[in-house]
């Protein structure tokens, strides 16, 4: 939970990051933008038109002209009344269409940016949650864009039309109106900018409450059993009160923004009305024109009201935009080769030769050599933090060594294209993701062409045969989020079955038996080498059983090899 998602204390200056990100990642075509602006303009124009023509109609009527002289105005009032609602409906749809389109493109770019960074290049270990959080960030950007564009279009169009109408009637009043609108908008922007840090602090305080509560609930059994619930009750109360005061400050900012908007708009209105009355007294303005001026000013100033909230909501999008933008600064830890080499003939040993790997500023692997020969089982053991997972990630080319080599046969892994590695090296991480979808689809990630029979066989090989038999829908059973809940053991076996379905030359397993009971673990370990015992297997484990099944045991300690032995030695 460090670098890119860390707190909001050092947030950017203002909401312009959303716009910058959109401009860089998913630019909006001018025609598209013009179409959206046109619907917004129609809505805003109808709004001003309705109020101004109504005012004209009524004030003109008071001088008792023939009814016929009013008929055009009556029709116009009715037309504006209908067009206002329809145009607003159209505007909202156009704006959302635009922002949803940007969001779809943004997501795709996010996918492209994240792809070379996982699993080795992101700072957090719990990459699944982190990756989901990025999708939520993209959603925030889309939302901010929708609100921001709507408000911007409304304000600008209404302001321009209102000012133009006012200027046509009386230049001085028009200028005052323009000044008032600019002042109202600028104060909204300024206050949103000032409140920006408080929005960030509020979000952080909320996140803190959520974290404390989650931690409290998770730790409840242990704390209850030991009679120490006081430890978390106090922490929750403290976090809540911090969040409460952060929220109170945020509300104060929002309130000042809202209040200032209302007061400034009203002050501008009073100024325009006073100026209009002056012009009327000086015979520069007729009474009817005065009425139209006043009501046009009222409509344009009222349109400024949503601006403050829109600017504030763009600040939320900004935080997400910043995190997404920060991704482009991360180096892919194991880039794809530009000119891929021909992979070696089969079977080929997978090896680290004097590999040195640095992660997060420290050397995690220091001159480590491990070879997984075809048909051999290698156990990589060692205390936590010894660098076992780093060795695995280097062996499957998610990390690269800064010196030394990682090779398949005599070819550097770094020179082999990822699709060529797919059926050579099978990788099962400690907490492999189970996709939302059917059981079969989850297995076929490894081989889309696999038949149902092969899928079933793979499940049987990892001891999931009886479990599969107990499922009403067999391979069609929905698993993953929203599907059938899997125990951690079932999840792990499923990941193993997936790896077996790919029928790789070498299997690299990170803690394959951590969540399995001993009988199951032994069974799995025995079957991994495949029917012909031709497969090379590397098992990372704390489990003594894993040693027992291995031909070679390599013991890592603080990034170095401490001991190396065979099964008997």
């Amino acid at each position, binding site marked *: 939970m460090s670098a890119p998602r860390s707190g909001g204390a050092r947030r950017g200056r203002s909401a312009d990051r959303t716009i910058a990100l959109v401009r860089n990642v998913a630019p909006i075509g001018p025609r598209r933008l013009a179409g959206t602006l046109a619907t917004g303009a129609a809505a805003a124009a109808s709004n001003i038109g309705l109020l101004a023509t109504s005012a004209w109609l*009524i004030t003109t009527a008071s001088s008792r002209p023939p009814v016929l002289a009013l008929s055009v105005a009556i029709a116009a009032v009715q037309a504006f009344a209908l067009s206002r609602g*329809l145009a607003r409906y159209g505007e909202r749809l156009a704006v959302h269409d635009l922002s949803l389109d940007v969001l779809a493109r943004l997501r795709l770019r996010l996918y492209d940016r994240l792809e070379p960074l*996982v699993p080795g290049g992101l700072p957090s270990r719990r990459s699944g949650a982190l990756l989901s959080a990025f999708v939520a960030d993209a959603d925030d950007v889309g939302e901010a864009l929708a609100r921001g564009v709507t408000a911007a279009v409304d304000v600008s169009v209404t302001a321009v039309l209102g000012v133009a109408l006012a200027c046509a009637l009386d230049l001085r009043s028009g200028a005052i109106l323009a000044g008032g609108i600019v002042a109202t908008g600028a104060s909204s922007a300024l206050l949103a900018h000032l409140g920006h840090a408080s929005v960030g602090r509020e979000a952080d305080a909320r996140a803190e409450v959520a974290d404390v509560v989650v931690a409290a609930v*998770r730790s409840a059994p242990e704390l209850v059993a030991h009679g120490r619930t006081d430890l978390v009750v106090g922490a929750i109360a403290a976090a809540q009160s911090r969040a409460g005061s952060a929220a109170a400050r945020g509300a104060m900012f929002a309130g000042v923004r809202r209040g200032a908007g209302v007061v400034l708009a009203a002050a501008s209105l009073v100024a325009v009305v006073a100026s209009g009355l002056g012009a009327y007294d000086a015979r520069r303005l007729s009474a009817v024109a005065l009425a139209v001026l006043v009501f046009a000013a009222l409509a344009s100033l009222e349109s400024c009201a949503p601006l403050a909230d829109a600017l504030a909501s763009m600040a939320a999008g900004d935080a997400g935009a910043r995190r997404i933008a920060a991704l482009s600064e991360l180096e892919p830890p194991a880039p794809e080769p530009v000119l891929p080499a021909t992979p070696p003939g089969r079977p080929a040993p997978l090896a680290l030769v004097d590999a040195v790997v640095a992660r997060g500023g420290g050397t995690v692997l220091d001159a480590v050599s491990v070879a997984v020969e075809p048909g051999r089982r290698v156990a990589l053991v060692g205390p936590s933090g010894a660098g076992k997972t780093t060795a695995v990630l280097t062996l499957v080319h998610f990390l690269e060594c800064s010196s030394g080599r990682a090779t398949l046969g005599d070819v550097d892994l770094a020179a082999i294209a990822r699709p060529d590695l797919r059926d050579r090296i099978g990788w099962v991480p400690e907490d492999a993701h189970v996709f939302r979808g059917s059981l079969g689809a989850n297995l076929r990630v490894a081989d889309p062409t696999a038949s149902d029979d092969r899928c079933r066989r793979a499940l049987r090989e990892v001891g999931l045969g009886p479990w599969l038999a107990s499922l009403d829908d067999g391979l069609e059973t929905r698993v993953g989020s929203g599907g059938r809940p899997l125990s951690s053991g079932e999840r792990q076996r499923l990941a193993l079955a997936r790896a077996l379905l790919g029928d790789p030359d070498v299997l690299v397993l990170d803690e394959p038996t951590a969540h399995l009971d001993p009988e*199951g673990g032994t069974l799995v370990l025995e079957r991994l080498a495949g029917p012909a015992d031709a497969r090379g297997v590397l098992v990372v484990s704390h489990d003594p059983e894993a040693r027992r099944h291995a031909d070679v045991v390599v013991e890592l300690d603080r990034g170095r090899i401490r001991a190396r032995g065979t099964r008997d030695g």
Partner: protein
Amino acid sequence: MSDAHGRATRTARAPFDRRLLPYLMPARFALGASVALGLVATASIAAQAVLLARLVASAFPGAPAGESRVAMLAGIAVAAAVRGACGLASEVVAQRAATRVKTGLRVALVARTLVVGGPGAGELATIAGRGLDALDVYVGRSLPDLVLAGATPFVLVAVIAYEDWLSAVVVLVALALFPVFGALVGRSAGERARARWAEVATLGDHLVDLFAGLPVLRAYGRTQRERVRVEELGERLRRSSLATLKVAFLSALVLDTLASVSTALVAVPIGIRLVYGAMQLAPGLAALVVTPEVFIPLRRASAEFHESAEGLAAAAGALDILAGPGPPSARRIDLPRPVGRPVPPHVVLRSVEVRDPIRRTGPAVLGGFSLEVAAGEIVALVGPNGAGKSTALAVVLGLVTPSSGSVSVDGVELSVIDRDAWRLRCAYLPDRPTILPATLEENLRLAAPSASARDLARGVSGTCLERLVARLPDGLATPVGEGGWALSAGERQRVALGRALLRDASLYVLDEPTAHLDAETEATIVAAIGRRLDGRSALVVTHRPALLEIADRVVRIEREGVVAVPAEPGDRALARTSPS
């Protein structure tokens, strides 16, 4: 996730959940103030409109003389200042109300978990954590606006009626039409919108899922193939969101149109009556300006209803949990307080069955399970994944209340024993131990705050933590956990075990104390466990041969309700009377 959404679509029908009422009580003054401020703001809007109309009318012939323009301008300014102040105050008050309600619900949820505990805690954590923040908009805005939508239109109609009663009739008719239109749109659109929202949620979950599985996709070289799916899902999500919005915005369209048409219907007759000299200009203008304001509270309430669906769903989730069965509140009797050396208890479980405390449906987590731990006996519990071993431990500690069967301690039913007193005699290592954001020493002392320095040192060496302590910059005083030094899974496990062993208990309940350990460390730790457990009762879940060796008896627990039978009783166990 989709489950939460599914629930959202089921419960978001009514704008108010009656069960929320007790939690709104602490915020009643803030909510009342919110409504009052809204009414004052409405009054100032009406005042501003009427003054503006009079001001403009004063420029026309036939205006009543003697009205000071400056006074009217000042009045407009004052009305605006009042409205601005209301705006400021209502934000502050809304936030206060939301915080009160959220705090109340959160405290209730956490308190409940700390008493009832047990499985399903993950879902509860989500709801009690971020979930409740979705209530901000609902409590702070939607609820007051819902009340205001019922009151302010009529206040404004009264103002219009004072100026011109005929216009007021027109507006009233439009207002009466609103529920009719709303029902027409709502009935057809509501169902469709709900189905669509569910589809949008599903597609969204799907996309998130692909991102979360990106490492696996990359490992199998499938990222490009799935990129096409990301694109396709994104496109479907876009279309389906847009289709949903088309329907959702429809009610806004109806309201907008109704407001516009009412304005037109007010304006035109006023114009015609003016032509025939049937009315004065000032009231006509005032009626015209106030008319659109009548519909604004309605539109706001309807827009917020859509936005607050999420908050309502969160509240419903929390209220569902709070409505579940609480801890048995029967009269409690105290166990005799241990004096001097703790007396190992004799624990018996008979045909215990446990169901998920939150969902309360589905198969039993633990079915028909019986077990006996004699005083001073070490019982090892083995069995396949998902058989309910950890749940059995939670039952013994009284953390989980069985749905049927009985638990007794020294012949007394656990349900009538003071749980705190019982737990004072127990030490517990859960399957997923907790590291609190505190120093390593505080973490180790969690279960035994008054342990001596010597005991602490012995605990550190017994759980092979010396190397960790040596590595930490400030040794035992180094902050660990969230925000401090990150511990590996194995280290967390050993810290939690050290914590449990440091407690001078008479019953040790340990869940996989030597998982994640290498053989050498395991041997040391098993020895430490053996020393500590000597002469105490213990129930230990394990698969490790080394740990099974120190057990007096091994009990096997099978999946799916099979009654556990003692397996391969050890020599010491045979010497005891076997459980009946």
